[in-house]
């Protein structure tokens, strides 16, 4: 079957989906890692995971060890999680850094802002300096980062256009939700391990076509015709609902709504993927962010975090709401895993899209294809 990406970037009506190799071929995975993740603005985790000053989490981001830390001024920073001396991993488990980040190998110490503080015995026993060791040039390697809607987005290459510029359109679209978000805590997050390439989770999230079949429970109150496609080429895609039904507790109680929302959001909700890997939702009473962590070409972690308009919400309701969402995400697992298995069929040509229903998936595929075509152009230049 053809690996010609120009078939993917054709208009929706004539396009094919991404070829099998984008789900099964390690060399393509490596190209995507560079073009879509390292040179773009993927989500890493959420800032609520490091609530206190000094909180630090080691992460593996597509195989690269990173360290997320809340510095002394309260700002969230991301570093490559290695000592500048011998490349030793600095922090192995989630912890609170009380003082310095000390390398467990030769005890080079760094501040939580990444500055190299001391290089013990570097000039011999008891001599902590050496003319060739310039501490000012040997701080931790900082990863460019930006926090939006509590999600920490990173740009490994360091040269992408600023996040705020790229996503101005979406920020404007959801301007009304630029309000304090309160993470519901331990009862408002979950993790699902899914045996599929990360893109299949994106594709499934973007479209509403599957709702009547995979989520019949949702369909009883939010029918297919109540949904619309969201396509912003090269930026994001997803779906919207014109009939959002608010979650209610056993006694009929509702979560408080976000303040001063326009009428659009009384019954409306939107579900959008910020490319490449952040699934976001806005609804009048709660929002969520799901970050897809690609752990291999055919395994993905889905990290879900739910936020409310107030810090004072009912724990039982939060727990029930989280369970409801987890149930919906679980309903999708057999689909994305089934499509991953299907990518082993040599006859599959990327698939034919519904010109009416599959716009958001095509929008995502075209973004992937264009990024890879640009990378190939760069590599061959």
């Amino acid at each position, binding site marked *: 079957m053809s690996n010609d990406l120009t078939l993917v970037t054709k208009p929706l009506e004539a396009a094919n989906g991404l070829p099998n190799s984008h789900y099964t071929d390690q060399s393509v995975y490596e190209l995507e890692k560079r073009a879509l993740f390292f040179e773009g603005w993927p989500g890493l985790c959420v800032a609520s995971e490091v609530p206190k000053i000094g909180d630090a989490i080691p992460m593996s981001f597509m195989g690269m060890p990173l360290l997320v830390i809340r510095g002394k001024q309260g700002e969230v920073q991301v570093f490559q999680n290695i000592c500048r001396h011998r490349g030793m991993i600095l922090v192995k488990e989630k912890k609170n850094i*009380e*003082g310095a980040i000390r390398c467990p190998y030769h005890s080079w*110490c760094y501040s939580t802002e990444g500055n190299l503080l*001391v290089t*013990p015995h570097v000039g011999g026993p*008891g*001599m902590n*300096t050496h003319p060739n060791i310039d501490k000012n040039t040997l701080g931790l390697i900082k990863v460019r980062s930006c926090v939006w809607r509590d999600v920490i987005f990173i740009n490994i290459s360091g040269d992408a256009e600023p996040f705020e510029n790229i996503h101005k359109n979406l920020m404007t679209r959801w301007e009304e939700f630029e309000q304090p978000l309160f993470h519901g805590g331990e009862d408002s997050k979950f993790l699902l391990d899914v045996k599929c390439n990360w893109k299949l989770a994106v594709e499934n999230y973007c479209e509403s076509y599957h709702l009547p079949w995979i989520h019949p429970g949702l369909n009883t109150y939010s029918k297919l015709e109540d949904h619309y496609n969201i396509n912003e080429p090269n930026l994001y895609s997803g779906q919207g609902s014109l009939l959002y039904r608010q979650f209610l507790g056993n006694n009929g109680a509702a979560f408080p709504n976000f303040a001063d929302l326009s009428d659009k959001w009384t019954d409306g909700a939107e579900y959008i993927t910020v490319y490449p890997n952040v699934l976001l939702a806005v609804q009048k009473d709660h929002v969520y962010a799901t970050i897809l962590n690609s752990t291999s070409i055919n395994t993905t972690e889905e990290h879900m975090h739910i936020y409310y308009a107030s810090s004072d919400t009912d724990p039982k309701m939060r727990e029930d709401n989280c369970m409801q969402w987890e149930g919906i995400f679980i309903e999708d697992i057999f689909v994305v895993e089934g499509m991953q298995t299907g990518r082993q069929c040599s006859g599959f040509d990327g698939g034919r899209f519904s010109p009416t229903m599959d716009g958001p998936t095509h929008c995502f595929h075209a973004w992937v294809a264009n990024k890879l075509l640009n990378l190939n152009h760069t590599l061959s230049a």
Partner: protein
Amino acid sequence: MNKKIKIDQLIIEAHSKNDRENLIKLYFEASKLFSKIEEISFFLTQAYVFSLDVGDDIESKKLFYMLKQHSRI
């Protein structure tokens, strides 16, 4: 028991328990048992690193200036 041997044992014990506060004290005490500047600085450095590790600003400032006095940092 020889003071140096005794403190050496205490340091090993503190390392085994990852008792960093105690290591600051013990390495500092050990520095007093030596006379050569290289030896003194070695132990002061050890104490200084653990003071940074635990975020003991008072101790780390004190140890930093002691090492600075000897042009060791």
